[in-house]
């Protein structure tokens, strides 16, 4: 059955995951199946937008398969979905055990607090990766049918970018619960940082003075320089920064979680 906290937590995530899978596949299906109509449309009205906007949302390439997926999925709906999923799981997995007091008995076994954190974080990351696999598989399969001309490499790279965005903001939410035990505070902090990061990403593209600071926002690394924009590129180095940041955020709060009072 459940041999450890990791497998038990995966089971906790299972029911919600089914809903997320259905929602994701439906979204991808709707976007991809609209492609044949979009492809042949006259998109010249998009030229009225400023050049920066056209670049941000891949408007110039909207008549190509990758450009279309970028504008409709990878720079819009999917980042939101992955960040919401990541924050939701990150804020819930540890805090729920503490808020409902099931953690007391868990920690009365020889299980260490570090191991509890690690298993919970690993389960949340597994959920995000699984959701990434769903996105990859559904786009790859449906784009093939719709003859969109997107490569497996592009799809994998763009899906990975979504996973990493969710991972980082999920890690922030998780870290807040490790520090405070409070789910609501974790959601508030992580969601505020996500909105701030996205706003800064847009500002940096539109305001010249901020251009040199664009590296500071995770969105730049995930959707600003990745294959989601340039369909021909491989998996960019910027991705590893997102993964490292997520690991660092969780590792940094581990000593505090080991020392603080449980169940405040």
């Amino acid at each position: 059955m459940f041999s450890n906290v990791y497998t038990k937590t995966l089971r906790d995530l299972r029911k919600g995951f089914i809903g997320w899978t259905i929602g994701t596949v439906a979204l991808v299906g709707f976007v991809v199946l609209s492609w044949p109509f979009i492809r042949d449309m006259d998109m010249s009205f998009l030229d009225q937008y400023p050049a920066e906007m056209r670049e941000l949302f891949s408007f110039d390439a909207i008549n190509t398969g990758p450009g279309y997926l970028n504008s409709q999925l990878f720079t819009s709906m999917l980042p939101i979905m992955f960040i919401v999923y990541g924050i939701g799981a990150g804020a819930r997995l540890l805090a729920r055990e503490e808020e409902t007091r099931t953690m007391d008995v868990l920690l009365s076994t020889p299980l260490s607090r570090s191991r509890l954190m690690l298993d919970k974080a690993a389960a949340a990351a597994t959920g995000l990766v699984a959701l990434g696999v769903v996105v990859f598989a559904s786009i790859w399969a449906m784009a093939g049918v719709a003859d969109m001309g997107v490569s497996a490499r592009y799809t994998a790279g763009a899906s990975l970018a979504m996973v990493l965005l969710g991972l980082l903001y999920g890690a922030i939410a998780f870290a807040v619960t490790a520090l405070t035990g409070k789910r609501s505070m974790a959601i508030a902090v992580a969601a505020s940082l996500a909105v701030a990061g996205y706003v800064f990403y847009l500002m940096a593209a539109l305001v010249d003075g901020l251009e040199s600071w664009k590296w500071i926002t995770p969105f730049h690394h995930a959707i600003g320089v990745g294959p989601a924009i340039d369909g021909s590129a491989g998996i960019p180095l910027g991705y590893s920064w997102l993964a490292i940041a997520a690991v660092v955020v969780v590792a940094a709060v581990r000593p505090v979680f080991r020392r603080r009072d449980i169940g405040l």
Partner: protein
Amino acid sequence: MPLSSRSRRIHDIGVSDSPAILVDQITKRYGDTTAVDGVSLVVPRGVVFGYLGPNGAGKTTTIRMLLGLLAPTGGTAQLLGHDSWSEREKAHRSIGYLPGEFTAYTELTSEEYLRYLSNLRGDVEWSHVVELSERLDLRLDVRFGTLSHGNQQKVGIIQAFMHRPELLILDEPTTGLDPLIQREFLTIVGETRAEGRTVFMSSHVLSEVEDSADIVGMLSAGRLLLEKRVDSLKELTVHHMTLTFDRLPPQEILERAAGVRDVVVDGLRVRLTVEGSTKEVLAVAAPFGIESLTSVEPDLEAIFLGLYRPEVS
């Protein structure tokens, strides 16, 4: 009795060199509030220790510090020779714990939950879980969320006992149990002691632990008032009595009777306090024609406070 001789006596009960629980001046403060204030106690191996006190006295806070869930503001505690904070994982291998407000995952059945904890512990014979569930009359195939409060508490008791731990720390274990199951639980506690294992259980009701505990510690407002063997405690129970005589009360005779103090005569009525047995005072008073008699056995806290007062004076 001075404190030092009392703690020596407690030591003497020990059956093993390192006590099951050794608490030294443990303190927990939250800002200006002191929840536990310099509590020290020794629980020898192989005894049942009743940790008593009214609600809010600091029992649960002490227990959560013993389990390493709360960091002490001051002082230390050792469980089976391991520091309860810095070596908590080591200590937890040989400990069973029932929290004060026990709860499990509502969506799991009791069996799924107990198997999960068994896997985390790794040293559980499933046949023992089945035996405990039969003795406590609990079906294991029902989801925790649908169980009554009493049945949920049984799941908590089973998870604390199932790996036959060396030391059990139980916070108000009988909460919600019906009397029959309560008796069965106390039998299990007795068997655990007979095997040389140790049980530390808290309660706010003396009667609940006086039959099963060897030693009781009484906590009030975060301070440990005393630690005593139960048999010596019963001798020291304090009664406040009011006797009404049909003639002039024999004040001097009453004052000389064993255990009597604070005799106040008010016409035909006498108020007095008896420590221990009331047998002698009743015997000497009877020939003088007792018209009526009321005797109040004070509640738990008052008993301990009554005992405590002579020691500080």
